[in-house]
């Protein structure tokens, strides 16, 4: 027996280009789709202004996807994201109506969502229930609560700076390139990516998703980490609610129906695995962008809604199929 096979090393050549393809896969996909649409689409798609629109339109799903990435790396799932976004907009509008300052209203929306997330985490850890079932339940509960709170109506709110968070920039603030909300998302995404990579909490999240028994054996406080992650995910959903409110300028209990699926799709397109242990913040943001680019491109080419949906679906399946193929083909470092 040669030394290499005795040691159980995979003896084939390491292919560095595949390693890089693995890391940059979603980004390359985004570049490819954008280029295709830029070449074959109408001139309006190529405009700089459209890039800004795409960034703004990806912000709501992108923000929620940052939190959902943590949950999915952990090996869990959070289906209540859409409902938490709606609840957040309703709470914000109600608080603004009662005269609260905008910052408090926004924090109120985030806080309300976070409470829902803690309930999710509590049910999953203490009662040892499946995350899918728990969050399927809270999906309905939170949506119902939002509707009840709003008396099944949209809640008008006075004009405040919250409306500008992801609105198109006025001419005098063009130097910001994109509105506050987008910058906030970039900042938070960098922070969370750093936490995942460079802190014990981040490594613990990966460890639990990769093998929960190993994490337990190594003294990881599995229950506490799960609670923190579901609460964090909800906080990001609440923040996505702030952005959603900014777009609507009213509280709407029926908004973001099914948004959880867009969010999960973004994470999965970005390389997240629903069996846990894999995923990246950058990937998920790219996933969110890919979906917006397709939507934007299709609508500007005058394609019908049903065709957009089919294309988005095909992209999701393709992305995951490619991901599996890349996994088989690469010896990962």
């Amino acid at each position, binding site marked *: 027996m040669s030394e290499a096979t*005795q*040691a159980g*090393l995979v003896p084939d050549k390491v292919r560095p280009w595949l390693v890089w393809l693995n890391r940059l896969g979603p980004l390359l996909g985004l570049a490819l789709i954008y280029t295709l649409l830029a070449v074959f689409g109408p001139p309006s798609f190529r405009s700089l202004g459209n890039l800004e629109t795409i960034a703004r339109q990806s912000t709501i799903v992108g923000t929620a996807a940052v939190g959902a990435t943590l949950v999915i790396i952990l090996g869990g799932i959070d289906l209540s994201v859409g409902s938490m976004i709606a609840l957040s907009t309703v709470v914000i509008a109600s608080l603004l109506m009662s005269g609260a300052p905008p910052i408090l209203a926004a924090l109120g929306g985030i806080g309300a969502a976070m409470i829902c997330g803690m309930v999710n985490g509590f049910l999953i850890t203490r009662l040892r229930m499946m995350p899918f079932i728990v969050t399927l339940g809270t999906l309905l509960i939170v949506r119902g609560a939002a509707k009840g709170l709003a008396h099944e109506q949209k809640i008008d709110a006075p004009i405040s700076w919250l409306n500008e968070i992801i609105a198109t920039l006025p001419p005098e603030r063009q130097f910001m390139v994109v509105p506050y909300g987008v910058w906030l998302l970039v900042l938070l995404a960098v922070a969370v990516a750093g936490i995942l990579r460079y802190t014990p909490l981040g490594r613990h999240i990966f460890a639990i998703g*990769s*093998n929960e028994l*190993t994490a337990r*054996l190594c003294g990881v406080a599995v229950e506490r980490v799960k609670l923190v992650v579901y609460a964090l995910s909800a906080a990001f959903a609440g923040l996505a609610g702030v952005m959603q409110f900014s777009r609507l300028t009213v509280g709407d209990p029926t908004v973001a129906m099914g948004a959880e699926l867009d969010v999960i799709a973004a994470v999965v397109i970005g390389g997240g695995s629903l069996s846990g242990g894999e995923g990246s913040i950058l990937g998920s943001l790219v996933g969110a962008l890919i979906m917006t680019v397709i939507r934007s491109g299709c609508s500007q080419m005058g394609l019908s809604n049903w065709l957009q949906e089919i294309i988005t679906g095909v992209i999701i399946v393709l992305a995951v199929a490619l991901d599996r193929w890349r996994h088989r083909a690469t010896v990962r470092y």
Partner: protein
Amino acid sequence: MMVGRTVDELYPRSAHIAGEPILEISDLAGNRVPGSVSLSLRRGEVLGIAGLVGAGRTEFIRALFGLDPVRAGRVRFGSFSGWSPPAARWRQGMGMLSEDRKNEGLATGMSLADNLTLSRLGGLGPLGLISRSRQFAVARDWAGRLGVRHRSPAQRVADLSGGNQQKVALARLLYHGVDVLLLDEPTRGIDVASKAQIYALIDRLVTGGDAGAKAILLVSSYLPELLGTCDRVAVMCRGRLGPARHVKEWTEESLMAEAIGMGGAMKSE
């Protein structure tokens, strides 16, 4: 033998000097098994636990390490007493090697470095952060000391052979710097070369080669291994742990007889 080793070479045995008792257990009982376990483990010794599969040996180790609940009994470990969860056990200086390497011992989808350092991620960088280069240096160092054949600390554990995987799992305990090692079937399903390395390591640890003599609790179903590496051996039968006797007082036959509950019958003959 295939690899040209004699039995003596496979089981190296230096003079072990048993020190003060570091772990004392009396009448420990879990939910179903173990029914009753009493033992005293000293620094500088390897205490073997024999018995049939299902006798409650693994359950005993897990209860001791805080992975399973304890129903009754007293445990004193160093200056700590009572039941502690795994995180506390690690802090107190106790480490456990799982019998199920693939499903519990290692997160095989994660890197060698992550697996090796998972129980002690503190101190790998400034401000409690993990510096990749520091983590990799630590992993390279310990993987080297245990002879883990690998390409890079970032390599997935799944890509290593069984023996090398087990050495990574063991390296975790050594990197953590525990005083008491609970080893559950440490050589199951691994190649002979790795086995020999692990036996040599066990011998070196209790003689205090690197840093102070450690104490080892070794659960094994392979009798020659118990007789070859342990100082004392106790037999578990239907959830009860018998008295620990010097390894010279045991033979494979007497261990087996005790394990199936016929120990008394043998002696009276």
